[in-house]
């Protein structure tokens, strides 16, 4: 990323809660969480070339793990948020093991089936998960009950996670991932165990989504099975495509735009899905490269590492 842009973003990020109302601070927290969520999805799709219809599963698992650890395990927020990505990564490890054996539409449907499996478990295992009623009352107490404090808390965790992801996509693993998206067959012949790399990407993406889910569950204080229903699996896809799949910051931008659009539109009408559907149509038919599309065009003509980074 260009240095001045990064600095600008960081300054904005730090300044936000100081200049906006509490309501908008909450929205800003949501933006941060979904920026991480969308970026984790893009690790799979934009970098690894794997389209998952079931990424919401890990967001939900992270949320449920955090909720359970706080409510039933009595753990502190910090520890619960360590548990979230670990639980999500563990689930991703199991699901991923089976899913990476397939590719394309079968891979996608398998991730979908696994998410629905988790959804039904969340719905039925009411002893554990509260069933349809979900788990409530998990807002942090103490310092973090203050929304500004929680914002900075979220900012630091998300920032750290995104930094780790940034290093990952520019590392040897990241290079292998990009090559994987382009030509998985060829990659084997240069000595890369492709399936293992796909699996590892799945696990990491799942873990990051889990962290996002945990942070979100705590911020709104509750979690419900609907987080795991199939309609939720569109959210990360929309955000990533909206922002642009072929850049690191694209999904984050998409998340920000999506969240803000939702807040604004939901404030005026109850038909947010209708609006979202129309926005998606416009996006898909008119603006397929997303909001950062013009950058991807530039990146194609310049060596990697110049502007924006891929």
């Amino acid at each position, binding site marked *: 990323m260009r240095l001045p842009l990064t600095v600008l973003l960081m300054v904005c990020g730090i300044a936000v809660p100081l200049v906006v109302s509490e309501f908008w601070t909450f929205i800003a927290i949501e933006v941060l969480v979904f920026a991480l969520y969308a970026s984790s999805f893009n690790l799979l799709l934009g970098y690894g070339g794997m389209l998952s219809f079931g990424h919401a599963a890990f967001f939900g698992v992270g949320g449920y793990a955090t909720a359970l650890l706080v409510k039933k395990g009595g753990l502190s927020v910090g520890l619960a948020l360590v548990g979230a990505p670990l639980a999500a990564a563990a689930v991703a490890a199991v699901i991923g093991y089976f899913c990476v054996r397939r590719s394309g539409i079968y891979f996608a*449907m398998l991730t979908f*089936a696994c998410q629905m499996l988790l959804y039904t478990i969340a719905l039925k295992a009411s002893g554990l998960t509260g069933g349809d009623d979900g788990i409530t009352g998990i807002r942090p107490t103490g310092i973090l009950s203050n929304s500004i404090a929680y914002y900075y808390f979220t900012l630091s965790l998300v920032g750290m996670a995104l930094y780790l992801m940034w290093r990952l996509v520019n590392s040897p693993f990241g290079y292998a991932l990009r090559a994987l998206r382009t030509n998985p067959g060829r990659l084997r012949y240069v000595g890369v165990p492709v399936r293992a790399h796909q699996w590892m990407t799945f696990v990491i993406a799942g873990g990051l989504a889990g962290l996002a889910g945990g942070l979100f569950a705590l911020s709104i204080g509750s979690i419900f099975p609907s987080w795991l229903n199939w309609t939720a699996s569109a959210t990360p896809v929309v955000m990533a495509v909206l922002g642009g799949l072929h850049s690191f910051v694209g999904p984050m931008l998409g998340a920000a735009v999506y969240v803000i659009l939702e807040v604004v539109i939901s404030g005026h009408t109850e038909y947010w899905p209708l609006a979202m559907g129309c926005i998606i*149509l416009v996006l898909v038919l008119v603006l397929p490269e997303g909001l950062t599309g013009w950058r991807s065009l530039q990146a194609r003509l310049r060596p990697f590492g110049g502007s924006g980074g891929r």
Partner: protein
Amino acid sequence: MEDLISFFVQHFGWLQYPLVIARQLLAAISNGMLLFLISAGLSLIFGVSRILNFAHGVLFMLGAYLAVTIALLGPGTITAYLAALIGGTAGLFVVGALVETGLLRRIYHAPHEFQLLLTFALVFIFGDVVKLLWGREDHSMAVPSLLTGATRGFGLTFPTYRLFLIVFGLFVAAVLWYLLQRTRWGIFVRAATMDRQMLSALGVNTHRLFTGVFAAGAGLAGLGGALAAPIVAVGPGLHVQVIIDAFVVVVIGGMGSVFGALVGSLLVGIVNAFGLLAFPSLAVVLTFALMAVILIVRPWGLFGSRE
């Protein structure tokens, strides 16, 4: 040992009552027929265009709503009922054609995520459109006078309407079979399922074919919705569960195979019905587990073509 016995009694006790089994079986098959109408369309659309139409559930739902509205012209009468069936089917046929030509056609060559997003967008849009047009409460439709009540046979009493569904479903299956096996259009559709590029290389107008298949699939879903309207609560949430079941069927039966959709629908209907008897809380999990297993072991399903 006692625990084992009571376990069996609790979960499989129904096996000793053939009447219960028979009744569940008939219910399962009638549900399966409705599921077949939706899944057949979904499977054909996927087979021909490789697009997984998430919006198929809302098409079903739209058909149900249309039927309910049309039937209001003469609630309970056969003519209104027939009009509702025709209206539901034809209406959705048109909707399908419009959606395909206006929207889907532009993204056939786009990456999968765009196709996914487009069909999702339709789910969101139509899901809200029905709320706008019909409100949020559930609607109902009267069973037509000839088909109310129950039929007796072999010591069983079974709702007549459901028997009608079974018969009608088999009729539609036969019509589909005829269309696919004995008409020129059917040959093209089956060929497209196997090899799209070859088909256009042979000079077949694939655009019109895709439109036709999508419209037909939508029409079938609409028909299914119209048929289901008298026995379900027609509300805005109707589509959510339906599409899931349809996906399971299409995976089991094999994407692109109508016969697979029939077999899969009956299978899912039966597993659901008897699963509910045996393990009420686990039944739902069973269907997804089955779907996952098939995708892992034999992703092209029972009758799909390997790819």
